[in-house]
Structures are given as structure tokens and as C-alpha cells.
């Protein structure tokens, strides 16, 4: 197991290196006149040239990359060109916000998807179709429309939640809960679709297994067999979907954080990408890649926990 983890970690490191190299190249090659973008249309050509010089953007690309890497390996991602904040600080102050959104949404979508998926798999017939259609709708309606609908109904018309903003957990736990409820739901709705379908399929497969009948013949109720045994066996494929889901939700957080004005990674990613804030975008790329690698590792370990054959081999 330890060797397995180490191997996955090593491949994760290679992944991060490759991704950051590609991202760096794309950003700089596609960046165009970066100093002009920083200064806007009002600056004169002289000022732009001066800024280019100041940021070292007139150096060869490989030199800039070596420079970036040599700082990045010690955790120094430089300073944002557009806010002057240290990249590492900008990210660390926001990563918890986004993770609490995404983890919350993953959990909610997993729970709801399990209930829906099991229901559809057991009932088949019209509940099955209904779940399918709900899933498809959740998938086909753009996330921002869902988010807006929630704000209009629950925040503005009913006034149950604040329409925008975020409260730190440390400041007020209840305020925190109220500030992330709508965003988490908005994020989760789109995600339920895929997982529910996956759970449905896995449960249908698992229900056909012989051991289900045997366990029930021993006096275990259908619910107990499904929620303890069937789900655990359906869990492997579902977890794989959840991992993909998690990465997808990181992307979904971009739009949701915009709509709710939540200071998370997604919000800063949109701004930074739009502005071409390369140090910040590079920091975000690396952090996202690290999160993805870690999540996949955790999922692999969980897979091992769920499936003793994997664990022991």
C-alpha cells in the first residue's frame, strides 16, 4: 500500500510539472502584450515598454520559466500583477472557501444521488424515468441559471439567505452556514445528475449479484442489504465518478462564486484569467493540479478500502 501511494505521488509530481510547463508556455505565448494589458488603454507606449522591462517580460521565455520554477519549488509564486498581493497569500486565503463549497457540494450531490439512484434502480419503471429526466435537466440547464433561480427565490423573495458574500466560519458558524447554503446547493444540483445515473447502473448490477439473495435469505431486510452491501459494492465505480465530479465542481465553482460574489479560488481564477495575471494563474494551475492529484490519491485509497482485492494486492 505504501509503495502504491508513493508511486501515485511520484506520478502526481510529474503530472504537476508537465501541467505547469504547458500552462506556462500557453499563457506566455498567448499572452500577447502583457504590459499593455496590465496598464490598460490609457498608458503611453513608453510606459508600456518601461513596465515590460520592469517585469522582465523582454527576457527569453526559457529564462523566465527557469526563474519561475526556481521560485515555485520553494513555494514562491511571485506577486499578482493586478492586485500586488503575493500569489501564495491570495490563494491560501481563498482555498478553504472553495474547498468548503466543493466538498459540501460533493457530499450533498453524493447523498442525494445515492438516494435517487437507489430509488431508480429498485423501482425501475416510472421513478426510473423520472430520475433520468431530472438528471438530464440538471445537466442541461446551465449552472448560472440554477444559481440565479436560487438567489431570486430564497435570497431576494423569501429573504432566508444573503444574496451575496461569504462569512468566515471563525467569525460566525451560523453565518458561515447561511452564506454557503445556496452556493453549495447550486453547485450540487448540476452534479447530482451524473452520479445518480452511475449509482443507478451500479446498483442494478449489484442487485443482480447472487450474494444479495443469500444475504436476504438470512433475514436481512432489503434496505439493509442495499445500503450496506450493495452500495459498498457499487461504491467503487461511484467513487470514480465522484472524483471526476470533484474536479468538475472545481470548475463549476468559478461561475457560482461569480454569481454569489464569494471570495474563492473560482472568483480569483476568472479575474486572473481575464486579466492575464500570469503569476496568479500559474499559482492557481499548480494548486488545482495538486488538489486534483490529492483527491485522486484519496479516492484510490478509498477504493482500496472498499474493495479488499485491490487493497491486498
Amino acid at each position, binding site marked *: 500500500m505504501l509503495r502504491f501511494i508513493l508511486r501515485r505521488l511520484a506520478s502526481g509530481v510529474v503530472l504537476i510539472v508537465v501541467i505547469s510547463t504547458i500552462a506556462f508556455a*500557453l499563457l506566455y505565448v498567448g499572452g500577447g502584450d502583457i504590459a499593455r494589458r496590465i496598464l490598460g488603454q490609457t498608458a503611453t507606449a513608453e510606459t508600456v515598454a518601461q513596465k515590460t522591462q520592469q517585469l522582465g517580460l523582454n527576457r527569453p521565455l526559457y529564462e523566465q520559466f527557469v526563474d519561475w520554477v526556481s521560485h515555485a519549488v520553494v513555494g514562491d509564486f511571485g506577486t499578482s500583477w493586478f492586485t500586488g498581493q503575493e500569489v501564495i497569500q491570495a490563494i491560501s486565503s481563498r482555498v478553504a472557501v472553495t474547498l468548503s463549497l466543493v466538498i459540501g457540494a460533493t457530499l450533498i450531490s453524493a447523498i442525494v444521488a445515492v438516494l435517487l439512484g437507489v430509488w431508480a434502480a429498485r423501482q425501475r419503471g416510472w421513478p426510473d424515468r423520472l430520475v433520468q429526466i431530472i438528471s438530464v435537466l440538471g445537466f442541461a440547464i446551465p449552472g448560472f441559471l440554477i444559481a440565479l433561480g436560487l438567489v431570486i427565490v430564497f435570497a431576494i423573495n423569501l429573504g432566508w439567505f444573503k444574496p451575496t458574500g461569504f462569512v468566515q466560519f471563525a467569525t460566525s458558524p451560523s453565518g458561515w452556514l447561511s452564506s454557503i447554503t445556496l452556493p453549495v446547493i447550486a453547485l450540487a444540483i448540476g452534479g447530482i445528475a451524473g452520479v445518480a445515473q452511475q449509482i443507478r*447502473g451500479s446498483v442494478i448490477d449489484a442487485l443482480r449479484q447472487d450474494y444479495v439473495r*443469500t444475504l436476504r435469505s*438470512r433475514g436481512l431486510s432489503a434496505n439493509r442489504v442495499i445500503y450496506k452491501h450493495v452500495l459498498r459494492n457499487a461504491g467503487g465505480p461511484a467513487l470514480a465518478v465522484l472524483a471526476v465530479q470533484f474536479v468538475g465542481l472545481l470548475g463549476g465553482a468559478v461561475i457560482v462564486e461569480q454569481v454569489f460574489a464569494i471570495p474563492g479560488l473560482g472568483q480569483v481564477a476568472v479575474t486572473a484569467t481575464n486579466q492575464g495575471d500570469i503569476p496568479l494563474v500559474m499559482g492557481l494551475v499548480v494548486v*488545482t493540479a495538486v488538489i486534483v492529484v490529492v483527491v485522486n490519491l484519496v479516492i484510490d485509497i478509498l477504493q482500496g478500502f472498499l474493495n*479488499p482485492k485491490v487493497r491486498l494486492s
Partner: protein
Amino acid sequence: MPLPDPQLTPALEERAARVSLFRKLLKNPVGLIALIFLGLLVLSAIFAPLLAPADPNTASLQDVLASPGAAHPLGADSAGRDVLSRLLFATRFSLAGALLALVVAAVIGVIAGLIAGYFGKWFDSVSSWLAGLLMALPGIVVLLAARAVLGPSMWLSMAIFGVLLSPAFFRLVYASVSAVRNELYVDAARVAGLSDARIISRHILTVVRAPVIIQAAMIAGIAIAIQAGLDFLGLGDMSVPSWGSMLNDAFAKIYTNPDLMIWPASAIALTCIALTLLANVMRDELERTAGPVKRRKNRNRAAEAPVVKAAHLSTVGMATISEEERRLALEQPAASEPGEIVHPVVVHPDPEDGGRSSTGNPFGEELLSVRNLAVGYDQPDGSIKVVVNDVSLRVRRGEVHGLIGESGSGKTQTAWSVLRLLPDGGRVIDGSISFEGKDLAHATEKEMTKLRGAKIAYIPQEPMSNLDASFTIGSQLVEPMRVVLGLSKAEATKRALGLLERVGIPNPQRTFDAYPHEVSGGMAQRVLIAGAISCDPDLLIADEPTTALDVTVQAEVLSLLRELQAELNMGVILVTHNFGVVADLCDRVSVMRAGRIVETGPVRSIFAAPEHEYTKALFAAILEEGEARGELVVAQTEKEGLR
């Protein structure tokens, strides 16, 4: 995704994938509607220049936000362009863009998946790693950067998106191909000297085609949704009309002209829904075709596939009975299905004293009495397929009642209906099952749950698949005892260890802690027996408990069963196709064929003087092959019926 059965010939699979899937799609109302919608969409995209009343890009300040009318059937947009024309051309470009993404993703993913899955080696690890890389790349950064470098072309964005999506195909194809790579028929093809290219195209491609088609429908939906998303983020391509750009334009005017949003929004939503539903219907249809096949694969050693075989029973019956039997049967009023033939049951009388068990004790009270049982399966068309008909049998305490018959004769269905654990769609449609005076045929699920384990227990046929691979053997023994007997964890553990010892497991603690895949088949069957008797049942239903085991182990397990039966004085229903087992263990036997009991009575009496033609045929088969495993003519016919 059901894995295809390697035992099927590729040709069969091909036929199933191509002809029958498409035909089934047309028969399925949801599939038909989705197909019609997508067909119309494609047609309107192709004939857009003929259908559109105006040029989709011609703006007009005079017509800005014009209401629907003669000049503009659906009105005009914020630049005075004709909405209907734009919608038609947008369909063209949106579909083409999605198709491009799909083709790129499929070509890269399928080819790489085939090569990696089939040849493996370094290409395997490199491409798997690349797939992981693509999935971890932040798509938005890639698209933004690519757009900045290469320009805002929708075609380029969609092609790049196709590359980003290719892992979806890659993983699917890779998994399917590596699963069949070492299957016998592929080996056989290789030995026969077929080139790799030929094997891939003839044998492997056919395996992955159906799942790839399903995946393609999903991917097309995603591509369309993403295209709209790109437009929404302002990353669209202004030079071509698309649903996303129309939606985009409509957003700005939604307050004053909300109807502008209806068309592109419904086009996107309906297309996504149609594609997803189509994929789901295709998957469901494939499941329906492949499901039973899969079951057969699981049980290929025992060659018993209750659902499928049951489904073909009536045909089988028809094919094998003589004209005279048919005439006779038609005179029988008991027939539950028109045209079905009913044979008189040959009943051997009980001995005067009611019979004695092998230990010489008289049998106890009547535990189970099944009368005129009929079991049927609901069919999609609303009819019921009858698989067990007019079966009556009884079991007394201490008595072992054998149910013998070939595969698909309904013996397992009878056993399961006593437990009320029939597969999906199956139910008791007639008759009664009386257990200790209670009618199980009409008991609630809650009442049944109380009875199972505590009063009626079950030993399955295939030891490995009947243990949950995710839990230790111990926990699977302990859980029912805690639920049924209300024992504490410690008590249940102690009892489980005792049981394991009792069923002859040399190191109970080690087996207790082991996972199912860590023990042998014989051990596993002993574990299942221990599980069945763990809550002191009165009636034990053993469904071919030794069939899946090696011959030497079979004898041991049988003698264990005999000992336990005597020790606990249980009534037993023993389902088997082996007359040796019947002779060894049973007090009474009922011979089943095509869902009915044809001959029943004390074992001694039937062995001495079999009367029914079928029973005689079974005995003849033993004499020839030593065991009744050989498939009779009937079974042969039946298999052909399946195909």
C-alpha cells in the same frame, strides 16, 4: 456498462448491436421520440438554406427586436436579424461543432484505447498517463490560451475540446478491450493466424461498439452544452451563428424581449435531453439483451440461467411434446395458459407408516406445504410468462425432499418462491405456500424478513458469488445473527467461530477474518452452510449445494449436510440434478420438467419403479454417463431456442 459475454461469437454480438438494438430503439417510445427529434434537427440543419426565410447574418436597424410577424415568423433579434433563420443556421453550426468535438474525441480515444488495451506495454502506461493529464488540465485555461494563440474559431475550440474529452472514450475502450484481450476466442483467433489488425477490427471493435455509441450520445450532449457555455463566457465565435451566441444575445434583452431566449434555450435543452435519453434507452436495451447472457456467464459451470430459460419454457414445451400429448393436454381444464399442455403427475404412495428418515426416526409435523404453485414473470408487453405451474409438494420436519430436473425445469424457481426471493418481475401468480400454517404466498415483506434466516434458510449453488467480496467472512456471518437472534457482537462472533468449526473449517479464526476471495470454493460452501444454519432454521432450502465443487469436496459437503440435517432435525428442500445426491440424502423426490412436477414420491419407490417417460430418460442418462449432468435432447433444443 455490461461487459459483453466472450462466449458469444462476434457475429452474434454484431447482430445484437446493430440490428436488434436499432430495432428495439424504434420500438421504445422514448427512443423513437428522441430519434425522431434528432432526425428532424439534422434535416433542418442540412436544409437550412432552403428553409430559412432570410440571411441569418443580415442586420437591420428597422427590425431591431421586431415582434413575430409576416416578415419574421419568430421575430428579430437585437440587431434586427431574423430569429428563425438564425435558429436554423445555428442548428447547423452547433451540431457540426458538436460533431467535430465528438469525432476528434472518438478517433483519439478509441484508437488509443484499442492500442493500449490490446497491445499494452509502454503505450498502455504512456496513454493512460496522458489521459490522466488531460483530465487534470484546467479546461478553461487551455481554451482561453488556445483562443488567444489560434484565434476565436468555433471549429478550433471544438476540436480542442474534443481532445480534452478523448479520455472518456479512451477509458471505456481500454477497459473493455483489456477485459477481452485474453479471452479464449481472441486467443483462438490469434492461434488461427489472424493478424492483429484483423483481430482488432473483427473481434475487438465489435465488443466496444455498443458502449462507444452510447458514450458518443452523451459526449455530443456535453459538447453542445459546453459550446453554449463558451459563448456565454464571451469565448464564442462571432462569425457563425450558434445556439450559444443566440442565447448570449437574448440574455441582454431578456427583460424587454424574454421570448428571444426561448428558442436557443429550448434547442440546447431539448437536444441535450434527447441525446441523453437516447443513450439511456440504448443502455437499457443493451442491458436487457446482455443481462441474461451475463448471468449465464456467471454460472457457466452449472449452465443454469433461470430468467432466460424460464422465458423460453413454453416454447421448449411446445417443441418437445407429441401431437397426442397436445390433444390430451387440451382436454385438461387446469391449463393456465392457452395452448399449454398439462401432463398428469405420477404420484408414488407413501409407505404405511408415513416414512422414516435415514436415521430411522419418524418424520415430525408438516413444515411446508406447497399447493398448486404457479410462478410467473411480468413481461414488458404486460403479459406474464409462466415458469412454474401447478406444483405441489410438502416437507415434514426431519424430511429431505429432493427436487430434481434438468436446467430450467423450474426447480430453483420453486425454491426461490418459497423464500419469496424471486428475481425482478417474478412473483407467485397462483396457489399457496403454507409454512407452519402461515401462507407465505401472501405474506408481507416484513413478515418474510422475520421468517428468513430464523425459520427458513438457504444454501446457494455457487459459493463464491454468494459471498459479498467487500466484507470479511466473519462479518457476513455475524450480521444476520445480530439482526435475527439479537445477539451482541461478542456473542455472535463466538457463535460464528463455533459454527465454522462445526462445518469442518480447520482454522476458524483465520477464515473468520478472511475475505471471500482468500478461501477455496469448498471452504466457501462450508461457510455458506454455516451461515444458513446459524439461526437454527426449521426448513433449509439447498439449491444444488455441491454442483460447483470438485468431486472430492462434493462428498464431504454432502456428508456434512446429512449430519447437520440429522443433528438439527430440519426439513430440507434439496434442489439438484444429480440422482446420486438424491439417493444419498433424500427421503422423497419430485421430478420436475418444464415447470411442472411429473413424478413424485418416496425415493426408494421411484428408484425402484420410475413410471414417467422423463424420469426413465433421466435414469438412462445416469447409466450412460454416470451422472445426470449430460444435457438431454430437450436441453439442446432449449439452447437453440435461446439463440
